C-alpha cells in the first residue's frame, strides 16, 4: 500500500501532490528497498509494500513505467501507484509472476552491469525497451499502464483536466466558452 499507511513512510503523500521529480538520475538512489522488502522513497516520502514480486523487480517496473509514459511533471509516486497492478497480478497468479520476473531479468541482462535501473540515461533505457517491445511482458505492462497511470484522478489536475463537473453545475457558468485568444 502506498503512502502514509506504509510502515516506513515518514509523511503523508498528500502535501507533495504536485511534487516535481528532482532529477533524471535520482531514481536508482531515491527509491530504496527496506529490510522488510518494501520500496521506500525518501525524497518523495512514500512507501510501497511488495507482495508478489521481488522488490528490485518492482523497482525496475516502476522506472520502466516512467520510461514508457514519461511525464516530467509527474512524481515517481504516481508511477508506483500505476505499477501496483503488476505486483497484484503476480501475487494472484504464478504465471504472471513468472512473466514479470523473467521479463525484468531479461531486461537487466540486456542492460549489462548495473541492470536497467543502473542505466543512467532515459534514451539508453528506451533503446532497451524497444528491443523487448514485442515481448508479452512489455505489452502487458504498457496496456495496463495506459489505464492505471492516466486513470488516477490525482494526476488529472496536473494535465489540466477537471474531471467530474455535474456536481458543480457543469460549465455553463464556469468557462465553457471563455476562450479569448482567437
Amino acid at each position, binding site marked *: 500500500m502506498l503512502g502514509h499507511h506504509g510502515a516506513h513512510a515518514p509523511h503523508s503523500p498528500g502535501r507533495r501532490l504536485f511534487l516535481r521529480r528532482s532529477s533524471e538520475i535520482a531514481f536508482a538512489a531515491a527509491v530504496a528497498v527496506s529490510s522488510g522488502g518494501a520500496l521506500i522513497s525518501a525524497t518523495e516520502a512514500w512507501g510501497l509494500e511488495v507482495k508478489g514480486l521481488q522488490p528490485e523487480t518492482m523497482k525496475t517496473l516502476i522506472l520502466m513505467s516512467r520510461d514508457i*509514459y514519461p511525464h516530467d*511533471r509527474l512524481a515517481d509516486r504516481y508511477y508506483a501507484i500505476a505499477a501496483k497492478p503488476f505486483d497484484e497480478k503476480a501475487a494472484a497468479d504464478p504465471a504472471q509472476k513468472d512473466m514479470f520476473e523473467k521479463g525484468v531479468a531479461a531486461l537487466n541482462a540486456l542492460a549489462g552491469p548495473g541492470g536497467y535501473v543502473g542505466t543512467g540515461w532515459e534514451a539508453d533505457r528506451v533503446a532497451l525497451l524497444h528491443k523487448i517491445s514485442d515481448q508479452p511482458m512489455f505489452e502487458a505492462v504498457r496496456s495496463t499502464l495506459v489505464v492505471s497511470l*492516466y486513470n488516477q484522478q490525482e*494526476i*488529472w489536475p496536473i494535465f*489540466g483536466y477537471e474531471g467530474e463537473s455535474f456536481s458543480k453545475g*457543469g460549465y*455553463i457558468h464556469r468557462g465553457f*466558452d471563455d476562450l479569448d485568444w*482567437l
Partner: protein
Amino acid sequence: MAAKFDLNDDNVVVIIGSGAGGGTLGNELAQKGVNVVILEAGKRYTIEDFINDEWASFAQLAWTDARTTSGTWRVAKNFPNLPAWIVKAVGGTTTHWAGASLRFQPHEFKALTTYGKVEGANLHDWPLTLEEMEPFYARAEDKMGVTRTNGLPGLPGNNNFKVFKAGADKLGYKECNTGHMAINSVPRDNRNSCQQTGFCFQGCKWGAKWSTLYTEIPKGETTGHMEVRPESRVLRVEHDDSGKVNAVVYVDKDGARQRQKARIVCVAGNSIESPRLLLNSASSKYPDGLGNSSGQVGRNYMRHVTGSVYGVFEKPVHMYRGTTMAGIIRDEARNDPGRGFVGGYEFETLSLGIPFMAAFLDPGAWGRSFTSAMDDYPNMAGMWIVGEDMPQESNRVTLSPTVKDKFGLPVADVHFDDHPNDVAMRSHAYGQGQKLYDAVGAVRTLPTPPYPSTHNLGTNRMSEKASDGVVNKWGQSHDIRNLFVSDGSQFTTGGAENPTLTIVALAIRQAEYIAAQMNARAI
C-alpha cells in the same frame, strides 16, 4: 402504468432492444394501443446512476460481452474484443450517443444511381426516398427536440467550437454551426436544458440529451400497453411450422430460461447482435438463419469512415468543457468525386477526457512523442470525421467458430477491411482537418485513428428485391412477414450523417406500417 404480459400471450409484439430503434418503436406502437414487450439485455439505470468518469461509466454502460474481430482494420489489432463502443442498458446507445441529428441528403438514398458501380462495393439504392422520409424525419426531430428545427435555438458554442469555427472560416467553409442536436437548448418535454457539463458519452445527468431511457420508454409504459424486461438476454427467435415467427427464447434477470410468445417479432439489437441473433436462430426450415434466403444477413457491415484530428495550440482551449459534440461543418458532406472519392463526410467537434485520450489518441503508442501530446492536453482542440463508407459483402458479422458466450451460443465476429474509397476519404479528411487547425495557429496536429465503432450499420439491409437484401422498405423480412428489423442494420447504405435520427424516423414509420398491418389482419 407499465403493463405486465403473460409469457403465453401470443398477441404481443416482442421488440428485442430498447435503444433508438426498439425504444422508439415500442412507444409508437403502445401509443396506438398495440401491446408490446421489450426485451433488453442490459440493466435499467436512472439518470442519477450516470457517472461523470470515463472508465467507470464505460464499466457501467458499455457492451463488453465477448466479441471477436478480423480483417485489416486497426481496431482488430488494438481492441480485438471491442469492435464497437455501444451500450448494454435500457435506452441502449441513446444513453451514450452525442446527439447529432442530421437528415440524409437526397442522393444518399440513391447511392448506386448517384455513385455508379464502384468496384468491390455492394451499392444499392434504398427502396425509399428522402421525400417519403421527410414527414417521419419531421416527427423524429419534434420528438427528440432537435436544435435548429421547429424554431428551437441552437446550442451555444463552447471553446472547442470556437477554435473549430475560426478554422472553418479561414478555410472558407460556409456550413458551420453548433449543429442539429437532440439536446435541449431550452427546457422542453419535462427535461432540463443543457448545462454544458461535458460527459455526453457517459449518460446525460441533466436529461437534456434525448434518450429513449427517459422519454420513449416511460411514455410507452404510461399507456399501459408496454412492458420492458431489463436483463433479458435473447437466445433465439422461434417459428411455427408455417415459417412465421411465434416466440422468443431468453434468459431472464434471475438466470431462468423463458419463452415469450409473440404475434410479431422486431429485432433491434444493433448491427452486431441483430444479425447474430438471426444467424443463431437457424432451424431445419431456415438452416442459414432467419430471414436469410438472400445470404445477406450479417453482410455489408458499415461503420462510417471515421477518424479524429486533434490540434495543439499555444494557449488553453479546455475542449472538454461543455457539449462533447459542439459543432459541425457540412461543406464536405456533398458528393464530389473530384476529391478522389464518392460520397462525403462531416466534421464534428469531439473531446475526450485524459483517461480516454490516453487510450485512444494513438492506441499502442508510447514514449515521448505520445506523452508530449498528452502534456499539451489543456491546449488541445478536437474534431471527429464521419463519412459514408462503402458497403462490402465481405465486411460482415459472422458466428465465431470457436468462441461461445456463457449460454453456449457462438459470439459475433466482426470482420472489416477499408475499401479504397474509404481510405481516400479518410486521407482527404485528415488533410482538411489538419489544415483547419493549422489555419488558426496549431503548433501540432494529431491525425487519430478510428475508435471502436459507434455507428454500426447495414448487416440486415433494406432492398427492393428479396435477393439483394434482408428486409423491405418497411424493415419487414422479405422471407417472414411477421419478422421485422428495427435498428441501423436496416440501412442499405450509410450516408455521411450520424444514424440515430434516421433510425428513429424509420421506427416511427415502421410503427405506422405494423399497426396498419395488424388492423388489416395481414400479420
